[in-house]
């Protein structure tokens, strides 16, 4: 299992703040494909991905127990 976190517009599009997804291994890009299947209305424009609280590229391997967070364009300050 992995935990996936959604924020801001992605939280509204998915209707969820977080969910657990069965995971046999694969890359962050594959997590994004899985999430697209689960929530087709999510927009990926400008979205970055964090693995265990660090920004990562889509080729990064994800293991069971990891936390994947999708970071839509930030607007702090």
């Amino acid at each position, binding site marked *: 299992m992995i935990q996936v*976190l959604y*924020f*801001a*517009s992605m*939280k509204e599009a998915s209707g969820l703040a977080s969910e657990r997804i069965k995971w046999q291994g694969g890359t962050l890009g594959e997590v994004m494909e899985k999430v697209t299947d689960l929530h087709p209305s999510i927009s990926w*424009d*400008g979205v970055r991905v*964090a693995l265990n*609280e660090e*920004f990562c590229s889509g080729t990064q391997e994800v293991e069971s127990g990891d936390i994947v*967070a999708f*970071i*839509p*364009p*930030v*607007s*702090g*300050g």
Partner: protein
Amino acid sequence: MDKRYEVTDSPLDPGKYIAMVTRPEAGAVATFTGHVREWTKGRRTLSLAYEAYVPMAERILETIAEEVKVKWPEAEVAVGHRIGPLAISDIAVVVAVSTPHRHASYEANRFIMERIKEDVPIWKKEIQEDGEWWKGEEVQ
């Protein structure tokens, strides 16, 4: 103990962050406070709501402070960012930087705000008279 790099749903007191960076070697403390603006390009904001990925946001604030220490080794930094519902003129962010002399404190303070806007996972929702949306995703 007070956190130097903090995301909180409580109102921000700039004095707390100024106190954290005040020290005998520092002749300058530059403090920036960002406030909720009512009017933007003729559109009226009623209120804002901020959301954050809090643990990652606090980690990245700490990383930004480390970047500051590389560029301005004598700087000390404290940052607070508020989340949750905010009203007009409420303080959304406080950045306090102390350095021995003033120029570096201004520069480092500006650098921190620019970096916050690039990388810290915090999101602002604008609640206006004709609807609400996440900043950066406006339909103009």
